[in-house]
């Protein structure tokens, strides 16, 4: 048969293998995550306490780990595709730092002590405000560059304000709480957190997953993409909205998790033969697997919670990133 038909069937088979592998990995890790805890290894059986441990403590942790990883890696893949730059990550459009600032203000003002959901709600409001400011700054017709500039500006201001709040914090306990929150953690989250953030994250991810064909077309540049029927302004709006919903909600609940949005798409890209549309679902699964695995590692080696999730992903991600830099350098050298 024709070369094209052969190619497509080959691609389909390779993709199917990859997606089965990633999907199976996520399921296995999720199961493992449900089985680990101070109450012992294995799925708790029976009624009462054991049941409560599973549904009220371990299940929300597992769900949030998977959702957070999926959201971060998927929006990283979408932003890298949109900006056509492998160094883009969700933090670049200012949503994460906005969510961070919102949460920090809630802790600092003491509102977080008044009701349980004050902290995540503060994060969500922060993410929403940051998104609106970035969209307003970037303008109706601006391209990718104005979006990055606006994102970096908002991100810098939010980070500076977080530092200001920290230094103004009269209460050392509040300062420590802020620092710990910023380091990112999945500990002590409940199903209420899942119900608050889960639907937003899923909606954001659904928006991002729709963008595959448009991102593929953008491989040829903006003019060629428009000629293929892509509405660039709409794509940009959906990228920001999808990232704001998914990553904004994730950060509001879990705090800052470094490197997942950058590294996961980077690692998976060659495995989907660089096609931005295939990278989206692959990154979703890969991100879920990575954060689940990190959280499991954390709970096995530091059950007391000394090591924070965001710290671990950065500790694992940074050397890996260095390795990528060295490999790229080796490829570029004659």
């Amino acid at each position, binding site marked *: 048969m024709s*070369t*094209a038909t052969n190619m497509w069937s080959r691609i389909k088979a390779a993709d199917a293998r990859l997606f089965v592998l990633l999907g199976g990995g996520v399921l296995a890790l999720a199961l493992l995550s449900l089985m680990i805890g101070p109450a012992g290894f294995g799925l708790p059986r029976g009624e009462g306490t054991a049941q409560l441990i599973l549904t009220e403590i371990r299940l929300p942790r597992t769900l949030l780990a998977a959702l957070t990883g999926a959201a971060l890696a998927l929006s990283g893949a979408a932003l890298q595709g949109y900006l056509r730059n492998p160094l883009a990550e969700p933090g670049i459009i200012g949503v994460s730092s906005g969510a961070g600032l919102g949460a920090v203000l809630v802790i600092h003002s003491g509102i977080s002590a008044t009701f349980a959901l004050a902290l995540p709600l503060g994060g969500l409001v922060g993410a929403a405000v940051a998104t609106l400011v970035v969209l307003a700054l970037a303008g109706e017709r601006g391209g990718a560059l104005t979006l990055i500039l606006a994102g970096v500006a908002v991100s810098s201001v939010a980070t500076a304000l977080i530092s200001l709040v920290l230094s103004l914090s009269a209460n050392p306990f509040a300062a420590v709480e802020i620092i710990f929150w910023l380091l990112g953690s999945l500990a002590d989250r409940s199903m209420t957190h899942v119900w608050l953030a889960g639907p937003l994250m899923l909606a954001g991810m659904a928006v991002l997953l729709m963008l595959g064909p448009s991102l593929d077309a953008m491989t040829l540049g903006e003019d060629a993409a428009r*000629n293929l029927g892509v509405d660039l302004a709409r794509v940009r709006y959906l990228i920001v909205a999808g990232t704001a919903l998914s990553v904004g909600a994730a950060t509001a609940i879990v705090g800052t998790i470094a490197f997942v949005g950058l590294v996961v798409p980077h690692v998976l890209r060659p495995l989907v033969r660089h096609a931005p549309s295939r990278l989206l679902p692959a990154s979703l699964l890969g991100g879920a697997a990575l954060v689940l695995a990190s959280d499991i590692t954390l709970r096995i080696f530091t059950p007391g919670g000394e090591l924070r999730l965001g710290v671990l992903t950065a500790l694992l991600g940074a050397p890996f990133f260095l390795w990528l830099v060295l490999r790229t350098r080796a490829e570029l050298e004659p």
Partner: protein
Amino acid sequence: MMLDARDVTVHLAGQPILVGASCQAQAGRITAIIGPNGAGKSTLLRAMAGLLPLEVGSVDFEGRALHALERTELARSIAYLPQERTVHWPLAVERVVALGRLPHRTGMMPDARDRIAVDAAMQTMDVSSLAHRPVSQLSGGERARVLVARALAQESRALIADEPTAGLDPAHALGLFATFRQLAAEGRAVVVALHDLTLAARFCHHVVLLVAGRVAASGPAADVLQPGTLSAAFNVTIANGLVADVPVVVAVAPLP
């Protein structure tokens, strides 16, 4: 008239790029847009592809204003091949060509019709043997042919190409124009911006000469490609004639 640009005026950053430029592209014909660097050739092509907001003037496709066409309908009607040949990720050649099918896609996956179009486009541009290679590993000329194949796979009624022969070896440049001739014979309209005046003389039916954003001459190729007209436009002395029965236009020396 298939593609009809009338009195198009475009300013970029306050500078006039096109001033009242008109260009009619007929079905069954190759229309060449020639002119010195910075004359506004690419801008006129982008306007004709519906990629620029027009301040003054209009561009119609088969009697309907481009901005009245729905995005997908426009994408199926006009294929545009930009001068820029960057492919941002090292996709396989086949995937790049298949991007031309996006406006035709009905489902998530390409159907038999898409595959036939992609295969045919790759065969026409002589890139079938490269199908599985990443575009990043190709030479400039090979990549140029892959991108033309993408535009062919779009199967549009009109094809607009900006300097499509830049970087092509003589065999592939001649092959490309034979393909354009074939497309025209099938009833499509082809519009190309060109620097190679001999290719314009040999293959194009209609020539529009742009100088400083204005149309200096427009008409049948043989009428426009005269030494007097070209000499004034390009500021060089021009000689023309027949070599091996092929019309040839040569720039001889810069005018003092």
